[in-house]
């Protein structure tokens, strides 16, 4: 190997270390028997996980996160898939504008959305409600679903739809029986993206959620603001495990998507 190449590897591995190490370095603290935030650990125990399990806050927060994430993914997945299919089928006037609106939640800073929704949802009784949070989080997930499903549709040959129509299938039936099965991995991946986006969201939740709707990230935020305890690290561990599961699921779906289109 040339020296330049060795240098590149060294630099690249250092960069990866910077990306991965911080989280990996603090997670073992959650197994500490003591209460301090540094190594060496005075001993191993599950006391912080027990605290996570028994406290009034953490487990309900996890449950809230999962429910809101599922609702948001469902909404975003349904609307996003329909829209992507429409965008892919035909070029109609205003298509670019629709795309721009669909992508906008990715660019507008969360804090602007948060304050705007606080003011809009308050009079409607949607703030401090699960419904309000699901609606808000679904908005954030839409662009991911649209992008992912559009990418999946690029692999799909539209001739198949015409063939189905020639065999007498209605357009809806053709979509459900011919198209949907082939792009399903893309749809599922998009929905998972939307779920992950919701799971990660703090700012909007901070403004819209009442104490009964607190999510796991929101609970971690107040914990970091108030008293730094190792229970937060236990919660972080739970969130990392969730992230790994999601990443694995999306990777598997990608593989399936690729093989099925081949």
């Amino acid at each position, binding site marked *: 190997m040339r020296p330049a190449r060795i240098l590149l590897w060294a630099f690249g591995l250092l960069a990866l270390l910077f990306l991965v190490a911080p989280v990996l370095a603090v997670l073992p603290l959650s197994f500490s028997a003591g209460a301090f935030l540094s190594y060496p650990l005075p001993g191993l125990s599950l006391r912080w996980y027990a605290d996570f399990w028994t406290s009034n806050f953490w487990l309900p927060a996890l449950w809230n996160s999962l429910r809101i994430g599922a609702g948001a993914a*469902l909404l975003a997945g349904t609307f996003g898939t329909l829209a992507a299919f429409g965008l892919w089928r035909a070029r109609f006037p205003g298509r670019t504008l629709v795309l721009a609106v669909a992508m906008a939640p990715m660019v507008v800073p969360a804090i602007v959305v948060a304050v705007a929704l606080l003011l809009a949802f308050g009079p409607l009784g949607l703030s401090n409600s699960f419904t309000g949070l699901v609606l808000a989080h679904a908005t954030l997930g839409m662009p991911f679903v649209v992008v992912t499903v559009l990418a999946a549709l690029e692999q799909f040959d539209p001739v198949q739809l015409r063939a189905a129509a020639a065999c007498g299938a209605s357009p809806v039936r053709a979509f459900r029986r011919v198209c949907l099965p082939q792009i399903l991995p893309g749809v599922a991946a998009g929905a998972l993206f939307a779920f992950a986006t919701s799971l990660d969201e703090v700012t909007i939740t901070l403004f819209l959620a009442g104490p009964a709707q607190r999510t796991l990230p929101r609970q971690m935020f107040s914990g970091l603001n108030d008293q730094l305890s190792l229970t937060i690290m236990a919660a972080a561990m739970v969130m990392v495990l969730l992230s790994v599961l999601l990443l694995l699921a999306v990777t598997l779906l990608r593989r399936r998507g690729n093989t099925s289109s081949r």
Partner: protein
Amino acid sequence: MMLRRGFCAALALGTVLLGGQAMAQGRDLTVVSWGGAYQDVQRDIFFRPFQQETNIRLLEETWDGGVGVLRAKVQSGANNWDVVQVESEELLLGCDEGLFERIDYSTIGGKDRFIPAAVNECGVGTILYSFVLAYDKDRLKEAPKGWADFFDTRKFPGKRALRRGPKTTLEIALLADGVKPGEVYKVLGTNAGVDRAFRKLDTLKADLVWWERGSQPAQLLASGEVAMTDAYNGRITAANQNDNRNFGITWTNNLFTLDSWVVMKDSPNRQKGLDFIRFATQPQRQAQLAQRIPYGPTAKGAADGIPPAVQANLPTTPENHEDALRIDDQFWLDNLDKLNQRFNNWVAK
């Protein structure tokens, strides 16, 4: 058609998933306090027993003060708090602006149950406490004698922490500048006096760290981040008791005040909130609280239940109260918003 049916099924599934709660209008009683060690004690002595005895579900929330937060809650139409522990000037301002429900004293046992200072048309006093000068005895060889020493970084090297906001900070600056407690608000009432306070703060600005949450001062001292800080007296004693710290308190010219329970305007849980306030102001419960974290009780008869050893740590004890400055609610009622803005701009620079 199939598509629409599928879509409807998805929506229906969504509704099921969200459960009935999303649709339910009522929400659980939400009590808001100041977090950290103090709220931990409140949880043990007020919140949990209240839930067990009344079967009313109670949710907790933590805040760090500011009448603007309460205004935003009420005026955004999205208020989700019911009972809040507020500081004295927040009580007056909020009451004046109609942010709180009037207290019906007949439902909580009558005004005579309380010391006179605790009775307000919008709120019921819950604790008497002081802002004190706190330091770590293990790190400072010599005890600081007062706020002048707080500003003396040559004699006592190290950073300082103060509560972010003009209230207490400006008073401390003037006290450190040699103003007598009795004169503080007379001086602060003039523009020259406010300038004088900010000039004094300028001398310390480079060494200042701001805290917002009541749990922070003890943490800042414990980690050695700062050499001295102002702090709620109870949190310092609690850190000594619970975490084996060796913190010292300088009571000279401590800033004395009280907090109150209020019920937020148009709270759907108004009656439950009053039930909670009645529960949390029982003399024996207040006495229990004082033994865990030394704040003075507001219910008559509660002080009798507090052992002498604990009394020494209370801000109401005569020797601690002697040269204290009572925070002037009326002054802050008239000036808080103005000085808040000046203070925030001063900090942001």
